[in-house]
C-alpha cells in the first residue's frame, strides 16, 4: 500500500501543521486529521500487530468500529491503550505507539517464529484448563508475554472527570443526515432537544459522499442546520458518544473534551459523562460496513469501501494508487468513482452478484473493469504491504495487481442502543442485516440505522422521526417539510450477496474478528466441537468479545454458524448488546468520586478536639473514630492497655457520639418499642433504662442497644454505630408498614446528640464534681444536669463493666463538655480512651457486638440472650423464632468464652487438633487488662455444654495457634458489683 496526501481537498486545515510521533518517529499532519488519516498521509500503512498471531495490521475502517489500527497514546497516567487510530483526532505533540510487537513493529519476533497460530486455536483456554492441570503453567509464561494488546498505564490518571445530569424532550443520537433532520424537525416544534454526535463534526456520511441538499452542497446545508439548531437553543454535543441506553429512557453520553492522551486546559476536565433523562429518544446512529471473508483479509491495504471514500473526501488522503474493489452491493461502486476522481487507478471491481442494470453499476461498467459473480479469494502481499489479490470469477481464477483492496460485505445498522433499551430486531434478507423492529422504551430508530440507504429517504424519515417524537409529547407537527436531496446515483444501494467466502478459500487465514484474531476455521472448529448456540460460539472462540464488541465481525460469524446449521441467520440469534457502545475511560465513570471523594467522611462533633491529640484513627463505617491516643513512645497496644487500665483503676472517657440514637414519642411509643425490641420494655419506669436487642424478621439478632424512658411518653433508643442506618430503616418499616395504627413519632437524632462515656471507679466522683448534682443517677437511671454551662442528659449505663455514665449534649455544644471532663479526669489520674481499649473492656465483660458475635446468623439462644425475651412475643422476629428449625439447640454455634496464658489469634478456627475440622471460631480476643494472659469470645458448636474443654485456636493462614480453655463468656466481675454503688 502506498498511501499519500492528495494535493487538495478534504476537511482539513492545510494552512496549519501539527507534529506528532508514532513509535518515536516524528510526522506531520493537519488540524482535522485523525491519527489514522495522518499516518496514511505519511505513507504509514503498518500500524500494529494482532492479538494472538502477531500479524501485521493496518487501518481497516475510518470510525469507531476499527478493529485493527489500535495504538497506545499519551504518556504517564494519561496513557491510553487500545485506542482506535481512526477515532483519535490529531493534536500538537500527540505521542502514539504501536502495540503487541517486539522488538519493533516491522520486525516482530512473535510473528517471525509463527508460534502462535499452532498454539492458540478456538477454545484454547478452555482446553488448557480442562487438560493436564500442570500444562497451563507451561503456556502461561509464553502467553502472558506474547498475546494481548495494549498494556494499561501504571501511574494514576492526573486528569479530572466531570459528571453532569440533563433532561430534555427529545434526545437525538447521531448527527448524520437523519439525525440532523430529526433534530431540525423536533426543535422546530419548540421541544427541548439534545443532539449528540460522537465525531468532531456534524454530518456523518455527508462528510464522505457528495450530495446536494435543499439546492446547496451538503457542507453548506450542515452549516445552515448547525446555525438553525443553535438559534433554537438545541444543545449540540460533538465528540460525545451515547454509550448506554438504560431503563426509563436514561441515556449516558461520554463527552471527550480532550482527545485520548491530551492535556486538558487548566482547570478543565478531560471528559464529561452525561446522564440524560429524555422523554423521547431518536436513534440515528448509522450503519457499519462489514469486511468480506477471504484469505489474508486482514492485511494492511485491505480497507472498507466507505472508509476509503472517507479518507479521500474528508481527509484528502488516498490510501493507495491502484485499487481493486470487492463487494456485493451498489454502494461500493461509489468508492470506485471517488478513487478514480482522486487519480487512483481502478484495477477491477469484483461484484459477487450477477450482472445488474442499476444505474451506478451500468455507469461503472462503462468506465471500469467490472467482473460479476466474482470474489476476492486471497490478499497477496509482504512486508511492503499489499501487492495484489487473487480473485475467483466465473471465468476462473485470476490475480490482479493492486496496493489497495476496498471491500464491502454490506452494512450492519448500529442497533446497539436500541437493543440495550430492550428492543427487538428483524432480519432483512435483501440487505443481509438486522434492523430495529419493536421498541420497548420511548425510542425510535431512523436513517441508515433503520436499514435505509437512499439519502432523500433518510432525510425524509429522519425529519418524520424527529417530528413524531415531539408530536408525541403534545407539540405541534413541525412546519415545512424534510430537506430535499439530490445525488448522482439515488436509490437503494446496500443489497448484499451471501457473506460466504469463495469455495476453496484458506479458512485458517480468513479472519472474522480482526481484533481477537478469530478465523472462519475457528468458527468451524467450534461448530464441529458441538457449540451450537451463538452465545457459546462467542465465548468459545472469543468472537466479538474484544473492545470493538464485534462491530465489524458478528454478522459474518453468525452467517457461518447459520450455514452450518442449515438455518436462516435470524434463527441462530444474536448475542446480547451490552453497554458501553464504545470503550469508556474508567475515570469518566468514577467522575469526582475518587481518592478522598470516593466515599463520604463522617466526622463526629468532637473530631477537632481528638485531632489535636493526634490519635490513631479507625474508620467505622463512614465515621472516623479515635482508636487510641498514644502518648510519646507508645504503640497502639501500649496505649490501649494504658487507657483500658485507667478505666479499670481510675477513670476514662470516650467519644460515643456515633451510636445510633432515636427519640420515640407519643401515646403509643411504648407499643412501638415492644414491636421493635425483643426484650420487655413496656413496663419501664420514667427515668429508667434497659439493655435491649432487636431481631430481624427471620428471628436472628439484628442489633442491640439501650432503651431509656426519658419522659412519660418519650423514649430514647440507642443502637450500634454501624447498624444505625439499618435501624432507621427498620424503625420506619415497623412504624409505617407493620403498625401504622400506632400514635407515635420517630426522630433519628444520631447526629443531633453527641455523647461522652465516662467510666471507672472515679467516674461517679467526676460526674458529681462537674454537674454539682446532689443525687448521681444509679445504674440504668437517667438524670439531667449542666456541665460547663451546657445542658446534658446523663444515662448511667456501663459497657466497660465499671460504674459509667453516658453524657449527651447537643452536638454543637459538646466541645466544652469534653474539655471539662478531660481536665477534671486528668486531675484524677484518668485518660481518654479509644475504641481499641473499649474493645478490650467489653470482651472482658462478655458484651456482644454487632458484626462480631452478632454476625447475622445468631439467635438470642445462641448468644445466651433468650432469658431476656419478652414472653408475650409482640415483636418483630417472634413468629420466625418459633419455627421448627430453631426448636433444637443441638449443633448450633453458641457464645462461649476462651482463656489462654498466651495470646489468642482473633478470627482463628477452633479445632480439637490442628489440623482438624473447625468446630467454631474466635470472634474477638483481648489481653486481660489487669492480669496476665488473654481472653476471647467465640462461637462454638454446642459450646454451652462444653465448659472446661481444651481446644486449639488455629489460624493456618497466619501460621499461629494457641491452646484455649472453654469458659463462661464473662471474665470480669460476673456479679456486676462494680457498676452498682
Amino acid at each position, binding site marked *: 500500500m502506498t498511501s499519500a496526501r492528495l494535493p487538495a481537498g478534504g476537511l482539513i486545515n492545510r494552512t496549519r501543521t501539527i507534529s506528532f510521533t508514532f513509535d518515536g518517529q516524528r510526522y506531520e499532519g493537519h488540524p482535522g486529521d485523525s491519527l489514522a488519516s495522518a499516518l496514511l498521509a505519511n505513507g504509514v500503512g503498518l500500524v500494529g500487530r494482532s492479538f494472538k498471531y502477531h500479524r501485521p495490521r493496518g487501518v481497516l475502517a475510518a470510525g469507531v468500529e476499527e478493529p485493527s489500527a489500535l495504538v497506545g497514546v499519551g504518556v504517564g497516567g494519561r496513557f491510553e491503550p487500545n485506542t482506535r487510530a481512526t477515532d483519535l483526532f490529531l493534536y500538537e505533540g500527540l505521542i502514539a505507539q504501536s502495540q503487541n510487537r517486539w522488538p519493533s513493529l516491522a520486525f516482530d519476533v512473535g510473528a517471525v517464529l509463527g508460534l502462535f497460530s499452532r498454539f492458540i486455536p478456538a477454545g484454547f483456554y478452555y482446553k488448557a484448563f480442562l487438560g493436564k492441570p500442570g500444562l497451563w503453567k507451561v503456556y502461561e509464561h509464553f502467553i502472558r508475554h506474547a498475546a494481548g494488546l495494549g498494556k494499561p498505564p501504571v501511574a494514576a490518571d492526573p486528569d479530572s472527570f466531570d459528571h453532569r445530569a440533563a433532561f430534555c424532550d427529545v434526545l437525538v443520537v447521531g448527527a448524520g443526515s437523519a439525525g440532523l433532520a430529526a433534530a431540525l424537525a423536533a426543535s422546530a416544534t419548540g421541544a427541548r432537544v439534545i443532539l449528540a454526535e460522537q465525531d468532531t463534526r456534524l454530518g456523518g456520511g455527508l462528510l464522505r459522499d457528495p450530495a446536494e441538499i435543499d439546492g446547496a452542497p451538503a457542507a453548506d446545508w450542515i452549516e445552515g442546520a448547525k446555525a438553525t439548531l443553535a438559534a433554537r437553543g438545541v444543545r449540540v454535543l460533538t465528540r460525545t458518544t451515547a454509550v448506554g441506553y*438504560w*431503563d*426509563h*429512557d*436514561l441515556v449516558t453520553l461520554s463527552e471527550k473534551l480532550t482527545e485520548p492522551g491530551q492535556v486538558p486546559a487548566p482547570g478543565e476536565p478531560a471528559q464529561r459523562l452525561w*446522564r440524560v*433523562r429524555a422523554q423521547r429518544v431518536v436513534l440515528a446512529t448509522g450503519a457499519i460496513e462489514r469486511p468480506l471473508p477471504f484469505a489474508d483479509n486482514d492485511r494492511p491495504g485491505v480497507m472498507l469501501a466507505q472508509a476509503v471514500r472517507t479518507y479521500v473526501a474528508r481527509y484528502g488522503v488516498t490510501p493507495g494508487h491502484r485499487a481493486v474493489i470487492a463487494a456485493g452491493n451498489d454502494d461500493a461502486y461509489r468508492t470506485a468513482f471517488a478513487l478514480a476522481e482522486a487519480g487512483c487507478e481502478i484495477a477491477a471491481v469484483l461484484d459477487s452478484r450477477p450482472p445488474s442494470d442499476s444505474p451506478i453499476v451500468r455507469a461503472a461498467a462503462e468506465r471500469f473493469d467490472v467482473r460479476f459473480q466474482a470474489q476476492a479469494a486471497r490478499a497477496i502481499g509482504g512486508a511492503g504491504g499489499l501487492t495484489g489479490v487473487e480473485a475467483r470469477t466465473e471465468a476462473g481464477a485470476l490475480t490482479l495487481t493492486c496496493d489497495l483492496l476496498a471491500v464491502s460485505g454490506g452494512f450492519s445498522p448500529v442497533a446497539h442502543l436500541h437493543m440495550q433499551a*430492550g428492543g427487538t430486531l428483524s432480519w432483512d434478507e435483501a440487505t443481509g442485516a438486522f434492523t430495529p423492529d419493536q421498541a*420497548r422504551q420511548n425510542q425510535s430508530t431512523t436513517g441508515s440505522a433503520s436499514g435505509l440507504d437512499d439519502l432523500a429517504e433518510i432525510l425524509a424519515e429522519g425529519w418524520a422521526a424527529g417530528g413524531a417524537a415531539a408530536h408525541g409529547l403534545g407539540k405541534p407537527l413541525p412546519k415545512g417539510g424534510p430537506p430535499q436531496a439530490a445525488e448522482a446515483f439515488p436509490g437503494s444501494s446496500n443489497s448484499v450477496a451471501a457473506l460466504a467466502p469463495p469455495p476453496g478459500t484458506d479458512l485458517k487465514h480468513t479472519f472474522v474478528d480482526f481484533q481477537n484474531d478469530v478465523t472462519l476455521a475457528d468458527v468451524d472448529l467450534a461448530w464441529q466441537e458441538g457449540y451450537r448456540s451463538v452465545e457459546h460460539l462467542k465465548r468459545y472462540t472469543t468472537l466479538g468479545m474484544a473492545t470493538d464488541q464485534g462491530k465489524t465481525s458478528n454478522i459474518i460469524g453468525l452467517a457461518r454458524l447459520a450455514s452450518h446449521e442449515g438455518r436462516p441467520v435470524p434463527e441462530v440469534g444474536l448475542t446480547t448488546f451490552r453497554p458501553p457502545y464504545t470503550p469508556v475511560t474508567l475515570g469518566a465513570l468514577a467522575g469526582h468520586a475518587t481518592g478522598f471523594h470516593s466515599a463520604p467522611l463522617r466526622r463526629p462533633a468532637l473530631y477537632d478536639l481528638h485531632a489535636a491529640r493526634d490519635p490513631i484513627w479507625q474508620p467505622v463505617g463512614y465515621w472516623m473514630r479515635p482508636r487510641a491516643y498514644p502518648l510519646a513512645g507508645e504503640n497502639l497496644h501500649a496505649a490501649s492497655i494504658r487507657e483500658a487500665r485507667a478505666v479499670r483503676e481510675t477513670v476514662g472517657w470516650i467519644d460515643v457520639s456515633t451510636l445510633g440514637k432515636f427519640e420515640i414519642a407519643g401515646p403509643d411509643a411504648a407499643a412501638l418499642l415492644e*414491636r421493635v425490641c425483643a426484650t420487655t420494655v413496656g413496663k419501664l419506669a420514667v427515668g429508667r433504662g434497659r439493655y435491649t436487642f432487636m431481631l430481624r*424478621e*427471620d*428471628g436472628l439478632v439484628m442489633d442491640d442497644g439501650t432503651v431509656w424512658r426519658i419522659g412519660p411518653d418519650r423514649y430514647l433508643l440507642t443502637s450500634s454505630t454501624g447498624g444505625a442506618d439499618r435501624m432507621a*430503616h427498620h424503625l*420506619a*418499616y415497623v412504624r*409505617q*408498614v*407493620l*403498625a*401504622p*395504627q400506632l400514635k407515635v413519632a420517630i426522630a433519628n437524632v444520631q447526629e443531633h446528640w453527641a455523647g461522652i462515656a465516662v467510666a471507672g471507679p472515679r467516674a461517679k466522683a467526676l460526674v458529681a464534681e462537674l454537674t454539682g448534682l446532689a443525687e448521681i443517677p444509679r445504674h440504668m437511671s437517667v438524670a439531667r444536669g449542666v456541665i460547663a454551662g451546657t445542658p446534658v442528659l446523663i444515662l448511667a449505663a456501663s459497657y466497660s463493666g465499671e460504674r459509667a455514665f453516658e453524657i449527651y449534649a447537643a452536638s454543637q455544644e459538646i466541645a466544652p463538655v469534653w474539655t471539662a471532663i478531660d481536665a477534671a479526669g486528668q486531675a484524677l489520674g484518668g485518660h481518654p480512651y479509644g475504641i481499641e481499649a473499649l474493645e478490650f473492656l467489653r470482651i472482658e465483660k462478655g458484651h456482644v457486638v454487632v458484626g462480631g458475635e452478632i454476625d447475622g446468623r445468631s439467635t438470642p439462644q445462641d448468644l445466651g440472650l433468650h432469658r431476656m425475651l419478652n414472653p408475650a412475643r*409482640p*415483636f*418483630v422476629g*417472634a*413468629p*420466625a423464632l*418459633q*419455627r*421448627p428449625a430453631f426448636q433444637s439447640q443441638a449443633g448450633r454455634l453458641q457464645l462461649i468464652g476462651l482463656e489462654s496464658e498466651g495470646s489468642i489469634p482473633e478470627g482463628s478456627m477452633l479445632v480439637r487438633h490442628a489440623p482438624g475440622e473447625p468446630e467454631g471460631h474466635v470472634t474477638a480476643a483481648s489481653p486481660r487488662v489487669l492480669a496476665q494472659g488473654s481472653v476471647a469470645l467465640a462461637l462454638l458448636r454446642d459450646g454451652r455444654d462444653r465448659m472446661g474443654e481444651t481446644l486449639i485456636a488455629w489460624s493456618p493462614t497466619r501460621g499461629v495457634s494457641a491452646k484455649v480453655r472453654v469458659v463462661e463468656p464473662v471474665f470480669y466481675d460476673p456479679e456486676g458489683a462494680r457498676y452498682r454503688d
Partner: protein
Amino acid sequence: MLRIVCPHCGPRAQVEFVFDRALDAILPLDASPAEAVSRLYERDNPRGWSWELWRHTAGCGAWLKLHRHSVTHEIDAVQTIGDLA
C-alpha cells in the same frame, strides 16, 4: 436507572429509593411460624408484573407500593401504602 414517581415528591431517580421486598413477603407481627417460613423463604419470583415495597429513603422517607414489571422494568403504579398492614 429507574424513574419513580413518588406520590409525595414527584418524579425522582432510582438512587433516592430503596427496594425492600415483594409486597407478599411482608410478615404480619401475629403471623404463625408456618406463615413466617412461607413468606420469608418460599417466595414467588414472578416473571412479569408484581407489587413491591419500596421506600423513598433519600426523599420523603415514605414507604411506597410499586407495581413493576420484572422483565421490562415498566412501573405503572406507585402508591402510598395506605391500609397495607
